[in-house]
């Protein structure tokens, strides 16, 4: 676990971090030009992300080989990242947790990111039994359709997702089906101003008058 004592001080702290793994933002083809895209080009455009440790590289290969329905995601620095379609999210989450050579049983973070035409929900999962392992799973919730963006809940796989999903529901308006208790969590119960973390959110509340002495 611990590296050599005379290892060079590494500012970013993630082991022997390579300086050259510049990763351009790769978006799936169907997401159009929405969201953060960076002008393609530069010599790094086609280079696959280099992972900081051999263990992570092995994990990336294992996942890519065993679960061929996952699409590699190039934007993430430092962890293997994959994109899954909504229909196979739950199945993939189960495999990630239960397959012994993957074994990612610890959901560290569940975030929603609004890319204007769809909302990405991102799962950062790690392994307590194998501390070197960790991976990122992304799934897109399309905003089209009358039901609004929705995804299946992963609380059956990682129970700790419960409040994280409530938070994404509260602040970004993604509904999670089969969630045990999908209610607002951070905003007040009667809040009707929209979804604050969406890019098109504007605060419609009456602005209070500022009492500033004129100079």
């Amino acid at each position: 676990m611990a590296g050599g004592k005379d290892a060079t001080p590494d500012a970013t702290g993630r082991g022997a971090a390579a300086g050259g793994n510049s990763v351009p933002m790769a978006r799936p083809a169907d997401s159009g030009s929405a969201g953060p895209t960076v002008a393609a080009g530069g010599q790094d455009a086609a280079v696959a992300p280099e992972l900081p440790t051999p263990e992570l590289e092995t994990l990336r290969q294992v996942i890519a080989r065993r679960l061929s329905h996952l699409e590699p995601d190039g934007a993430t620095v430092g962890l293997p990242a994959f994109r899954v379609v909504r229909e196979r999210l739950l199945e993939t989450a189960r495999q990630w947790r239960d397959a012994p050579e993957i074994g990612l049983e610890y959901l560290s973070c569940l975030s929603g990111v609004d890319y204007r035409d769809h909302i990405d929900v991102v799962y950062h999962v790690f392994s307590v039994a194998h501390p070197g392992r960790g991976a990122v799973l992304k799934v897109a919730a399309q905003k089209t359709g009358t039901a609004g963006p929705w995804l299946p809940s992963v609380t059956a796989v990682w129970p700790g997702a419960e409040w994280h999903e409530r938070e994404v529901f509260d602040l970004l308006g993604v509904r999670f089906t089969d969630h045990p208790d999908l209610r607002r969590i951070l905003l007040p119960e009667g809040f009707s101003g929209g979804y604050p973390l969406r890019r098109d959110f504007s605060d419609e509340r009456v602005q209070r008058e500022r009492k500033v002495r004129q100079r």
Partner: protein
Amino acid sequence: MEAQGGAPAVVERDGRRLMKINMGPQHPSTHGVLRLIVTLDGEVVVGVEPDIGFLHRNFEKIVEGWSYPGIVPFSDRNDYLGAITNEVAVCLAIERLAQIEVPPRAVYLRVLFCELQRILSHILFYGTFGLDLGAFSPFMYAFREREWGYTLMEKATGARMLYAYNRIGGLRNDLPDEWFADLEKFLVFMERQAWPEYMGLLIENEIFRERTIGVGKLTPEQAIAWGASGPVLRSTGVAWDLRKAAPYLGYERFEFDVPVGKNGDTYDSAMVRMLEIKESIRIIRQVLKMLPDGPVLARVRPNLRPRAGEYYSRVESPRGEVGVYLVSDGSARPYRLKWRAPSFCHLQLVPAMGGGGKVADLIAAVGSLDVIMGEVDR
């Protein structure tokens, strides 16, 4: 949500008269504004439902409109008792995406301040946990050292709680030699006098042991499934510490042990924190020996534009795993910054820990989680 202030709501269930009452939002033992809706059968807790959001300020939305250097001081406000670790978590994410090399002296000093922060946070935990359980004197002893520690922090950073000491690329200022002499005095006092006193006053106290041993029990499986981290996870016997498991700031250079509990109860959770104070002192001593000379701040252009990409940085704060998920689109403002707060995950465990016990045990359970509402509500 029957309990809305005023008279407690009475509900009939299976022929029993249950009472729904509010604990909080302004209850002395909730450490901030946490509201617990407690269902009681007499004095037995049948159900607990935490209600959060009273301190919500939408940190994540606000920083989307800010330039990167401004985010670092604002992140202090999330976990206000672990301000340095918050700053480090944000700085590591930004520095990784912007490919900024931090000078070695700054890396070592960051370790020093993270550990000093951990000591101060655990001292406060010790004081308030005793207070929750009705032991007032330990609180006064804890504040004796806390005051000293905060004065040390003030001398180094200029602030007592919200330091804004980390900069993207290093630290704001270096430290004078006298400061290290003061720090050494503090560490010696902590080790030789304060720590044994703490143990004698509270941890080895018979009443304290009766109130905590076997109370608020968690299994390792529960803790992992619900995303617990830090001392709460370690009290169940899982030796999971990001400083060992995914070393950042070069923690692999230092020798220290990860204290773990056995039973996952509130006593083990307190004990793990007490032992961590000792380990932190050990790390600080090693930092002082190994501290290189040199600058503490790299040259960073003020209008910083990290490359487009995403990075998730994880840091072991006094409370557990602080995560910063940073999405950059290559502009001067973050596209998205998600804050993973350990206390947020820990509060999900309150029903499992407090259900079935007495009201007093619920207070012990919540106190042992050491939640900071600033980072829960963000």
